[in-house]
């Protein structure tokens, strides 16, 4: 297929000033990616590391030709990417296998699309199935396979078209820990032995250890809009050991990197330590149980009010993607401060952790109304009205001036959750009404 010789050292893939935005219902643009500059060279595994919403999956889709950048360009072997390019294949997080095709047929599909002779399709498909360790499963349907085996089909399907670049969109995150590790190791072995027909890999992940384990270079992504915060080279020799001190050190360093606040906010006084919040901020979907759970864990020994994020994450068996939003909610509610990879509880945070349930509700109510402008706004509207009630649509409309429909809905749901816990106001979903009354 792609027999054009690669000039040694010239990039396989190049993104220049790539930007991506989506139109909002009100006609304005929602910026999701900005200023993306990157290069993938032969023989590299490049990691795109970031939290959900940082645009890393969007970037992968631009590279795959599944979407078009709003500005800038993506070049594959020097040619602009317009539509899915031959020579770039993708492995999906949810496997994306066709349930009505057997393992063999799933793998062969990509070759059928290339109109190859049947004999060759058969030969190459069987070879790919063999390579990835699926021998004997050719006639099985995906539903008969375990998650790990399904993702192996995903890999075989991608490799069979002999791509130069393999794109992987969180390929291990839908698998259990043990299966994921086996698959990673198998993949790294095949890569090290040069048995796969690929020249470069881009791996999207939110798992720091996975990135450090697999990648030669890691691009750390920041959110709102998605952008590259920093690039980290991993020079540890393969195979890497998670317990190796230099491995741990690197993981720790990336944690700090990812919790660092934007530069502008970090320079000011104490008040500015907390990211500014207007009524138009999207609120995370974090329940009160998680909030109090994390505060209790940090307040308790051995942390006693200050915890190292990687440490407490492994203590609570949470991934950073789950932990970060909770930690940030604590910060937003002024129950904690995030700095340098540490989470430190404030005075009120400590008080909350040691209080009984009614006292907790009182503290939470005070902080909710003081630091979440949307909650304060809804409460004020309800207080001022004679009926002490208001329609949900009223607030949705207000929020949609700032954010997408979906975000507005999520934000309102988050504020309702917290308000119910703090008994700040009530919400009746059936009539979509806010009110001050408690249900009788």
């Amino acid at each position, binding site marked *: 297929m792609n027999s054009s010789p690669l000039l040694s050292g010239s990039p396989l893939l190049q993104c220049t000033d790539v930007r991506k935005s989506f139109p909002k219902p009100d006609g304005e643009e929602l910026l999701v990616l900005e200023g993306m500059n990157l290069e993938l060279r032969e023989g590299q595994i490049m990691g795109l590391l970031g939290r959900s919403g940082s645009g890393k999956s969007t970037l992968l889709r631009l590279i*795959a030709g599944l979407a078009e950048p709003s500005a800038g360009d993506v070049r594959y072997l020097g040619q602009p990417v317009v539509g899915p390019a031959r020579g770039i294949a993708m492995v999906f997080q949810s496997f994306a296998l066709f349930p009505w095709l057997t393992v063999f047929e799933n793998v062969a599909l990509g070759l059928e699309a290339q109109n190859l002779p049947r004999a060759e399709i058969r030969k190459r498909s069987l070879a790919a199935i063999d390579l990835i360790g699926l021998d004997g499963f050719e006639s099985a349907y995906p539903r008969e396979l375990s998650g790990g085996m399904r993702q192996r089909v995903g890999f075989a399907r991608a490799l069979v078209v002999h791509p130069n670049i393999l794109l992987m969109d969180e390929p291990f995150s839908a698998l259990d820990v043990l299966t994921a590790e086996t698959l990673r190791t198998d993949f790294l072995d095949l890569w090290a032995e040069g048995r796969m027909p690929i020249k470069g890999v881009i791996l999207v992940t939110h798992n720091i250890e996975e990135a450090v384990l697999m990648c030669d270079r890691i691009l750390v992504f920041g959110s709102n809009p998605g952008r590259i915060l920093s690039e980290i080279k991993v020079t540890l020799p393969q195979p890497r050991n998670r317990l190796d001190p230099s491995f741990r050190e690197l993981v720790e360093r990336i944690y700090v990197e990812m919790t660092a606040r934007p530069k502008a906010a970090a320079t000011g006084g104490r008040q500015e330590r907390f990211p500014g919040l207007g009524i138009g901020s999207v609120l995370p979907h974090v329940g009160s149980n998680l909030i109090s759970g994390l505060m209790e864990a940090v307040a308790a020994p051995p942390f006693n009010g200050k915890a190292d994020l990687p440490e407490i994450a492994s203590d609570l068996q949470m991934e950073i993607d789950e932990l970060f939003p909770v930690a940030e909610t604590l910060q937003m509610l002024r129950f904690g401060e995030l700095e340098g990879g540490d989470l430190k509880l404030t005075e009120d945070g400590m008080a909350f952790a040691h209080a009984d349930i009614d006292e907790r509700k009182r503290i939470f109510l005070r902080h909710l109304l003081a630091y979440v402008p949307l909650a304060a706004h809804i409460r004020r509207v309800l207080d001022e009205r004679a009926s002490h009630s208001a329609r949900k649509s009223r607030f949705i409309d207000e929020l949609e001036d700032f954010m997408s429909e979906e975000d507005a809905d999520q934000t309102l749901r988050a504020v309702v959750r917290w308000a119910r816990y703090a008994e700040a106001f009530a919400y009746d979903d059936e009539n979509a009404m806010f009110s001050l009354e408690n249900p009788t």
Partner: protein
Amino acid sequence: MNRFEPYVFLKGLASRWDVLAFIVVIGLIAFLGETAHGLFAPLTQLEATPLSLNPIHLPEYAARTTFRMLAALAASLLFTLTYATWAAKSERAGRLLVPILDILQSVPILGFISITSVFFLSLAPGRVLGAEFAAIFAIFTSQAWNMAFSFYQSLRTVPVELIEAAESFRLSRWMRFWQLETPFGMPALVWNMMLSMSGGWFFVVASESITVGHSAVALPGVGSYIALAIQEKNLVAIGWAIVTMLIVILIYDQLLFRPLVAWVDRFRVEQEPGEKIPDSWALTMMRRSRVINAATAAFHNLVFWTSRLVKRPDKPPVEDPAPSKRRSLDWLWVSLIIAALVLGLWHIVAGLIANTSPSEALHVCGLACITMVRVFVLIALASLVWVPIGIWVGMRPRVAEVVQPIAQFMAAFPANLLFPLAVYGIATWRLDPNVFLSPLMILGTQWYILFNIIAGASTIPAEMRYAATNFGIKGWLWWRKVALPAVLPFYVTGAITASGGSWNAAQVSELVSWGHTEIRAKGLGSYIADAAAADNFHQIVLGVGVMSLFVVVINRVFWRPLYYYAERKYRMT
């Protein structure tokens, strides 16, 4: 080259499944040949060989009826694959095609049969073919809309990651259609085909015996047989027809739908490991038989080779025209539609004004109200009976396993076959037709309520039932807080189907005859039936138009909100 292993014939001796398959295939071919033979005969031949009530002819009549059903199903499938695809792929076309489909779903087409028949008879003048087309078209109209709707919805809900996978492996649009979109839509499509067939049997009985003006055409078939039996007041013949129909539906179920349902199971995207896989002996036969394997392989090859003919362009298609140009095209499109609408509306209204009077229209609306009351009262009565029974059955898996197929079977059985029995009773005991004809309209459609309730009750999680028992929730409280809310979404689905079917059935159930006695109930159904008998085009249009309006409005203001409410509040996920 291209020899693909599994398709080499006759490695060993033919299996016993082959023998079975051989018999079935040859039987089908013989049957198709025989039936097709009569198609090109002139209409006069029908008169030369009049129908006979001798039950010995019933197998042949049943075969002819079945053939019509198959032809209509094939036509509906073709319509579905093209119309729904067009609507889903072209945003501009979809804006028009989808609402049309929505309306067509609720129009009681039965009233139009005599009008469409004239059209089809004129296509092949003097030949049986024209009358056959008319009958097939009538059946088609009872099957196609919901099939197309389900396929359209499937096309719009293909999982994003599967589309992305297909895109990234550069499948051509043709391949994507056959390898991704059609398989994905299959389960819903097959389910709707089954529902369509149920409705179709009802129509086939009503459409075989057509009266156009003063000439009556009776196509050989079970429907005509029934019509003749009614004319001659022959109860025994009606009994034979009922038995024949039962057998035909049973064969259809075993040979067509069970295999289909078992087969489409593999196309479902969500796979619950614990779910029971549907079973079908016919599918086993097809899978094990090499003869039939060869046929399916041929289909696979067809898709494979046509996929090479329709290549994916190396460059992506040309960019959409500039927004301003696109907008003006949109405007053009919308104004064309509006112009066509106004023209059509004017045509109808002008025709109605010239030939009917406002007082007549008012009278028709009054009749529609009577029929509406009848439909609602009957649905309520049927619910009172079937909801408790359905819940009782649904919570007992063993019982449900037996009852559920029976309920589905009863829904497929054309209830109009049973009408003569009711008429006989009403005439004999001189009952009030306004009351006693009414149950006929729900005779065939009440089963939708029953089997939806059974399905709903069987999804109540065991833990929820244990919890109810544990907290001592019993009696009326149990019905009110546990059972009824749990089945509500299912009930609404069943009731909507039952209501739509009942409106349609009104046209044949409010005016029934037995020999020369005609028994009528006051209502819109008997009005349309009278107009059709008198061949009064304008009255038919007025009657069907008002009925469509009632059905559409009732759906919009009553059933649809109820449906969404039930889905939102009571659907267990």
